[in-house]
């Protein structure tokens, strides 16, 4: 059997995949606990318009996706906290709005239909060295910021009202958190693609929560599940020519059912 890692593109895809597998649960755990899973899905759709802008202007689509998603995430949070519309309505506006915008941009420049598929469902083979640097730098930024704000994030997720009473600046913290979510989603595009990102953020965490451990062990279990799923996805894509994004998400769901069996004995 051929060693897949003699190919540079597989090595690059694997490095990017592992970084994302480690960072995604750190954000995902707070998304799940705060019932924010829909925000992940919305921002993923927003990132597609970012990708489309990049392809149209011939700029690295990962960079335009990061910029578009972060800016939109802050607007969504402002709209949500202003209570002018329901939180859910703010998401609906952005989810379909950004998809519509992306479709219009795509139809404007008829040229990039082929590469579009790889952004929708991920394409590890196309990860460039610049992408790895972007993923590495952004991933480190997200990881470091969450480590520094960890206790505050736990407090506002657990009991937002008491956190507010104790003087924590919940509004600023919510904006920082949603911007970090936007960054994580953008850098996950090359690995799982726009349509499957929210699964990578949430399913490993939901699975890890079945074991009913404290928060940090839960995050570590979720990271282990994500890393295994990403590796399996990459290997099967190499040997069997299957979509890595699809295999990654299916593997996380497989782990979820394993966790159900393991934890239902008691």
């Amino acid at each position, binding site marked *: 059997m051929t060693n897949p890692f003699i190919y540079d593109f597989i090595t690059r895809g694997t490095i990017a995949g592992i970084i994302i597998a480690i960072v995604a649960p750190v954000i995902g755990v707070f998304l799940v*606990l705060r019932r924010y899973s829909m925000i992940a899905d919305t921002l993923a759709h927003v990132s597609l318009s970012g990708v489309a802008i990049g392809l149209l202007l011939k700029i690295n689509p990962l960079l335009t996706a990061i910029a578009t998603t972060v800016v939109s995430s802050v607007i969504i949070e402002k709209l949500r906290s202003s209570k002018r519309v329901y939180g859910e309505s703010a998401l609906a506006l952005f989810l379909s709005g950004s998809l519509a915008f992306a479709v219009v941009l795509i139809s404007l420049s008829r040229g990039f239909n082929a590469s579009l598929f790889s952004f929708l469902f991920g394409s590890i083979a196309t990860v460039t060295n610049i992408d790895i640097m972007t993923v590495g730098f952004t991933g480190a930024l997200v990881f470091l910021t969450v480590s*520094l*704000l960890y*206790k*505050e994030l*736990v*407090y506002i*997720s*657990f*009991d937002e*009202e*008491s*956190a*507010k*009473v*104790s*003087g*924590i600046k919940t509004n600023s913290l919510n904006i920082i958190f949603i911007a970090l979510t936007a960054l994580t989603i953008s850098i996950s595009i090359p690995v799982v693609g726009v349509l499957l990102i929210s699964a990578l953020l949430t399913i490993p965490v939901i699975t890890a*929560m079945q074991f*009913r*451990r*404290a*928060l940090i062990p*839960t995050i570590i279990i979720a990271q282990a599940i994500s890393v295994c799923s990403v590796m399996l996805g990459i290997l099967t894509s190499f040997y069997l020519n299957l979509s890595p994004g699809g295999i990654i998400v299916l593997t996380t769901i497989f782990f979820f059912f394993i966790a159900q069996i393991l934890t239902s004995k008691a």
Partner: protein
Amino acid sequence: MSVETNKIIVSVNNLSYSYGNNQVLKDINFDIHSGDYVGIIGPNGGGKTTLVKLILGILQPQTGNISILGKPLANFSEWSKVGFVAQRATSFDPKFPVTVFDVVAMGLASKKGLFYGLTNTDKKAIDKSLDSVQMLDFKNQLIGNLSGGQQQRVFIARSIVSDPEIIILDEPTAGVDIRSQEEFYKILKRLNQELGITLVLVSHDIDVITNEVTELLCVNQKLVYHGTPKGFTSGKHSDELYSKSVKFVVHRH
């Protein structure tokens, strides 16, 4: 701990509040002194929770003003001096993966500011708070695995870990069984009498509250009664109260 009995902890002056056209609080005036154990009662919709939210700075007063520890609420920043225990049933998700220790550590957030890590002194303070509510043995358990009464004791520990001058409790025993409630009130009494912490207990359960507190506020849009619990139950005020259509369900346990 010495208690300066005349020090004013909370001062509420000419306070009014409306949600749209619905006036919930009108011309409320009272002071809470250091060492007081104050009960706030009143019918549902009478404005108890709104009053608490105003004192805690969650809502802003529309007319009148509130000061805490001598400072107007707008300039008040020492929130570590104010503990808060919310209704158990609505305040958290029992599946949330945090340990009892983690929950009590949250109480240090305001004292330590952003980016804090826990020092050994902090860890000792957490142990001490847990010990004072007899929950130290449960330190490493997940909060969701405890009974309602035990969870509520952990929230008391969280509110005292930052060494507060006052603790405000909003219907803390809702959904907690009777035996745990008795234990809970014993702990509150000890915090008040031994540690000199000022307590404000909001409840709709007039029977329990009049047995526990030293001072009673009855709120039904206006401040209907302010005095000792004995004075309230003696009947002298009841005609006046009932004529204002204040109705209480008295539980006989």
